């Protein structure tokens, strides 16, 4: 038992340590990475939901250039977002977390929690399962009568 404990403690420590390294050693986002991330987060307004990064429509190129220029000029993500949304409402590929659109973030969490509670209920029901209610006995009895007939 103790050797198991030692082994798994080793695995656990290794995982936590490696994850810590992966986070700490990450460094800050470079300008290029930031531009790429912003390109990926807007929809090209005329190409059926393709992202600005992926589309070769002229408006996508204009928005790409705009983002590059603004990033180099030191604009914040929020400023860039406000400018683009002023021209192209709804072009953010990540729906906002407020108003009606917040539902798209909240509902999956609600469903997952309800599902998890349901699964926990099913798994935890084992004690009751051995006790058969009178309604169940009636059902079985009815089924048996059906068999005999």
């Amino acid at each position, binding site marked *: 038992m103790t050797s198991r404990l030692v082994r798994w403690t080793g695995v656990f420590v290794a995982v936590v340590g490696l994850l810590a390294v992966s986070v700490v050693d990450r460094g800050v986002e470079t300008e290029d990475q930031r531009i790429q991330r912003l390109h990926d987060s807007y929809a090209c*307004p*005329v190409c059926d939901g393709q992202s600005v990064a992926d589309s070769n*429509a*002229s*408006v996508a*190129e*204009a*928005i790409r*250039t*705009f983002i590059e*220029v*603004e990033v180099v000029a030191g604009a914040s993500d929020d400023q860039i977002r406000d*400018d*683009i949304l*002023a*021209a*192209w409402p709804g072009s953010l590929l990540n729906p906002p977390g407020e108003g009606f659109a917040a539902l798209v973030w909240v509902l999956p969490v609600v469903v997952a929690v309800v599902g998890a509670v349901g699964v926990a209920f099913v798994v935890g*029901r084992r004690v*009751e*399962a*051995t006790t*058969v*209610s009178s*309604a*169940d006995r009636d*059902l*079985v009895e009815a*089924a048996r009568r059906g068999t005999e007939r």
Partner: protein
Amino acid sequence: MTGPETPPGSPHDDLAVAPGCGGSARKAALAVGAVLLGLVIVLGIAVSSREDSAGDSGSALLGQRVPEVTGQDVITGARFDIQQTRGQWLVVNFFGTWCPGCLVEHPELVSFERWADSSDVQMLSLVVNEPGERAAAFFAEEGGNWHVVPDGRASIDFAVAQLPETFVVRPDGTVVAHFRGSVTEAQLRSVIPVP
């Protein structure tokens, strides 16, 4: 992988039935059904309204103040500020030499310019997605003598989707007309009252 690792199933001496499963199945089915009914209704409305919404919604800029545009004129090298044109009618044209529709409309703009010069109408071309030199060379070859400025952030502020697009601005700075696709001299003149 199930072979020896699996303990043999313990025999049940009676039909042990977990309670709650049957009745709750019915309730769950009804609940899911209600949600899906909503989905079908939404999709149905979407199908039936699809034809209506196909039309052009027009630019949100109409009736609004024209966005700020500044930049260096690629032909004269002078600094351009849209404020300089306040008090005059202004035609703002988005173009690129790579855009076929822009090449089609250019002669129309050139002939409109002749009328515009005599009518105190300013013209501005904003160069989209290409170096200013190429635009300058194009104007030198194809004619046209008006402000030509790199678009900077203007195509974002004007929400330009597909070149060419043209806006007409009243002397007080209000956007009064918007054309998608190649524009003609007649179309432009129809918007601007004869002085």
